[in-house]
């Protein structure tokens, strides 16, 4: 079963997912639901954090690796899923 782009985005939008980014394994953006400028802003903020977290995990246990990171703030959450070939980032805003 495969999703087309719209169905994929709608699936997350239903649950408050506002923006979705797909990056390749090196962190270069492949797909995004928002403008290139905004994508760049998000990715340049999140990429160092992601790699820092990965290093933290590997430092503590070299055989271990990070699969998922969730950052929760007052206004929303950022979910990052790390696969072998890609990174999926979903930005979610809490409804008032």
């Amino acid at each position: 079963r495969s999703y087309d782009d719209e169905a994929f985005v709608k699936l997350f939008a239903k649950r408050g997912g506002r923006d979705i980014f797909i990056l390749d394994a090196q962190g270069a953006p492949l797909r995004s639901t928002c403008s290139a400028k905004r994508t760049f802003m998000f990715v340049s903020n999140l990429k160092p954090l992601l790699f820092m977290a990965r290093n933290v995990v590997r430092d503590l246990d070299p055989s271990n690796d990070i699969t998922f990171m969730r950052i929760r703030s007052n206004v929303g959450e950022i979910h990052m899923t790390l696969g072998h070939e890609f990174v999926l980032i979903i930005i979610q805003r809490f409804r008032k």
Partner: protein
Amino acid sequence: AMWNGVQETFDRLVQLPAVTGAILVDGNGVPVRTNLNPADSQMYANRMGQLVATANSMVRDMEPSDNLSYVRLRTRRQELMVATENQHTIIVIQDAQSLDASRRQSMAARNSTST
């Protein structure tokens, strides 16, 4: 009063399911309560402290009025949760398998009561 609030939060989080490690770090980066050995506790405190500081400044960069609540990291074997409150940092380590099992249980319980 500031310390008590953090202590209560810490005591509450330690009760979470599948907790294998719990570290309370003070404002100077020193682990003041922990169930791991001192070397590991200091190692976690240093690394997670950096991570949570970076995450907080990132959150503020994206929205100046916003504030970090917590960071949750999932690895193959564990989930780590880091939160800061009143200059103290709380680190909770949970075993991934047991945690997922208990999440499945509570999801099943919630679904069956809502039908």
